[in-house]
């Protein structure tokens, strides 16, 4: 936990970096009165990208994946959470991230902060903390992209890449392909992480935007584990591949 505290302190220090006059609000116009227009007031956004029931080949799962930001145009606090739990019991995994994000290129936020993982349920709860460095934004051809490097408190290095795309079938019926890849530099057997490519997830979700902010969806997702990660899964009596049918809700506020 000591490492976690250090990382938190680092993240806070990063968020205090000079923000340019940008989000400061006050400006040095030689004008007697406070402000003309509040062109820097903060906004907040919360997106529950995936909240779904998955009909897996093994036990069925509930999964969530949400993120949000609060801040101005250039500097934002990001919160992200992801996790899943089998429907049949109360075991599960939770991941949360708190990141400082800064607009470093027109479509890209550089993000730095901390991640905290925890398992919960019948067995002993386990947790570990990470430092995070990532970029998130819109790549050419409109790929929603989220790339991150993680250093665990034990010094283990891992990385993840998420890409999402939106294809409009109508103005409200939207097909969303999604790719996620996880990789690690070192084995972390207790967490089932092998070195090299860990897993690949390919998803396809079809949502209907009843309102922009509220869209039920159905979809499929295929997951494949590789290398040591696959071996650890097999040793644990789990499948190394899975095809899930899923249904869920996408919402934002």
């Amino acid at each position: 936990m000591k490492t976690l505290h250090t990382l938190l302190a680092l993240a806070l220090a990063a968020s205090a970096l000079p923000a340019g006059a940008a989000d400061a609000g006050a400006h040095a116009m030689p004008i007697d009165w406070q402000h003309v227009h509040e062109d820097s007031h903060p906004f907040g956004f919360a997106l529950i990208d995936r909240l779904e029931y998955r009909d897996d080949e093994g036990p069925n799962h509930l999964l969530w994946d949400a993120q949000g930001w609060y801040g101005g145009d250039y500097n934002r606090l990001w919160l992200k959470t992801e996790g899943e739990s089998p429907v049949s019991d109360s075991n599960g995994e939770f991941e949360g991230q708190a990141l400082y994000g800064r607009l470093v290129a027109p479509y890209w936020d550089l993000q730095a902060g901390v991640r905290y993982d925890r398992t919960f349920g019948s067995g002993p709860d386990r947790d570990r903390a990470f430092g995070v460095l990532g970029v998130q934004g819109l790549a050419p051809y409109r790929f929603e992209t989220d790339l991150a490097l993680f250093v665990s408190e034990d010094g283990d290095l891992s990385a993840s890449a998420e890409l999402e795309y939106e294809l409009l079938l109508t103005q409200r019926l939207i097909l969303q392909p999604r790719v996620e890849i996880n990789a690690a530099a070192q084995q972390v057997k207790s967490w089932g992480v092998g070195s090299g490519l860990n897993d690949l997830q390919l998803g396809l979700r079809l949502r209907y935007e009843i309102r922009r902010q509220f869209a039920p969806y159905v979809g499929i997702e295929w997951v494949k584990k590789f290398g040591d990660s696959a071996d650890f899964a097999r040793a644990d009596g789990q499948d190394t591949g899975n095809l899930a049918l899923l249904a869920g809700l996408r919402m934002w506020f």
Partner: protein
Amino acid sequence: MRYKHPDETRRRLMGGAAAAGLLAGVDALLPVWARSPTSAAGAVRPPAAGAVQFDLTVARQRIDIAGKSAWAHTLNGTVPGPLIELHEGREALLRVHNRLDEDASIHWHGILLPFELDGVPGVTFPGIRPGETFEARFPVRQAGTYWYHSHSGLQEQTGVYGPLVIHPAGGYQDAFDRDYVVMLSDWTFEDPMAVLAKLKKQSHYYNFQETTLPQVIAAGTPAWRDWLAWAGMRMSPTDIADVTGHTYTYLMNGQHPDGNWTGLFRPGERVRLRFINGSAMSYFNIRIPGLPMIVVQADGQDVQPVQTDELQIAVAETYDVIVTPTEDRAYTVFAESMDRSGYARGTLAPRAGMAAAVPALRKRPLRSMVDMGMDHAGGHGGHAGHDGAVQPDGSAAHAGHGAGAVDHAAMGHAMPASQPAAANHSAHTAAAPASAKTGRERAAPGSVVATHDADTHGVGNVAVAQVQRDRTAEPGTGLADVDHRVLVYADLRSRAPGHDARAPQRDIELHLTGHMERYMWSFDGKKLSEVTGPIEMRHGERLRIVLVNDTMMEHPIHLHGMFVELDNGAGAYRPRKHTVSVKPAERMSLLLTADEPGRWAFHCHLLYHMHMGMMRVVQVV
């Protein structure tokens, strides 16, 4: 030519007396000027003399608007506010009473006055505190059609706007028998702050006319190339309006299209229509099917009459036209929002209660590679042109772009040379008006006059206009493929020659910049809060302001307190404007004599763009 005494005009402008009839329930909530008159005879009002005093009270109240009941910011109890009529050469005393529980302000748009009275909180005065009254007393030095609106927060979106007409001291040069204000606006039942928050979170929130995959598939290979080119740039060719008919009801004189504001005429009469775009965010294309319009004034300034069938009015612009309906029938006044997601509508009719056919909304327009500032005719041929652009019905559009040959010799920073003054202009009012060309005739992009330097304006700006064109002779978005006459800026010629023949002593170049995805808007990549001081001008200085639009949408740029002369090739007869719409990838040249001392706001008149920082302060010392 007939000269009208101002007071006769005043009588007509006020329209009929208190309205009865079909829409009385609706009309009763409108200011007198906006009501549909029920008889062809106007009520005679006593002639005004001396100073004109007018009281405006800003309040928050529930009113019936756009077909429902809603909370609005009202002016003397109505939306839009009352018509303020002033007289050139007489003094005006305008008093604004703030009955809100927050600060208020009124800016007199296009009016020449001491800057302390201009009504921009933080720039010219501290704002009007709750319960307080602000007085603007000034001599009226101009004539024409103008308007007024709030400059506080987003109050303008919720109703704080109204028309302001100044009658000329010497009577009108253009003969007309009837005089109507036609004020266009956009109303939303959403809280404007919620609208802005949505744009901030998902900038295409209100766009329900995006290109879909089935449309691309149906349109074939060119459409694929085009779609890929736009996706590659992370932009959308359907990005025409940030806020659309999805949330807006477009109003004509405060009335829903079904309310059908009606202006009466007797066949053969000349009817002056004073179009004012008092919208927060919406450009309109205005036409009156079956009735040509003679444009006689733009932004309150008389222009040489020019006949057209359709005109685009940017946010905050005004156009006065004269029409002469000769048939004993109704004519629809149709104002289609530029993205064609809705329309405002009214009627000119010989009797109340009549209506003519309401045209269908046309296909939504698309942005082109010219709008992107791409040098596609110059050989960087990887990106497709817009010939494969997909229309909503899935067919490929055939918008003309073939004439887009780049004149490399004209590159550099040369601006189009001003033409020598026309030798004979004195007889224009007696002569038949000039006639505009059709949209198709004008579809070719203007010549390339400059290229962009290496400055990309920082992380708050996503693109630059690599090639910049003089686009003053091009039709507005969506009007390039119509077969009737459309007004363009190059058609506007001031009626009187400019009074300052000096060449500009200095250039001020400003780039219009932004980031649609993150909904950031700025000049030169900097929001108002990011600059350290005003744009300085010396009193009496002759300047050229060059506006370069690096974004892919139009911005109506408004300078307070002074008129700019739009360098549109009219030489000494450059039109004087308070608001200029700068097209995507356009390089626009404006001449200015900085003859009004003080601090003046200078900003994009799209309300949410201004609010996000697309604004500067100009200081004339």
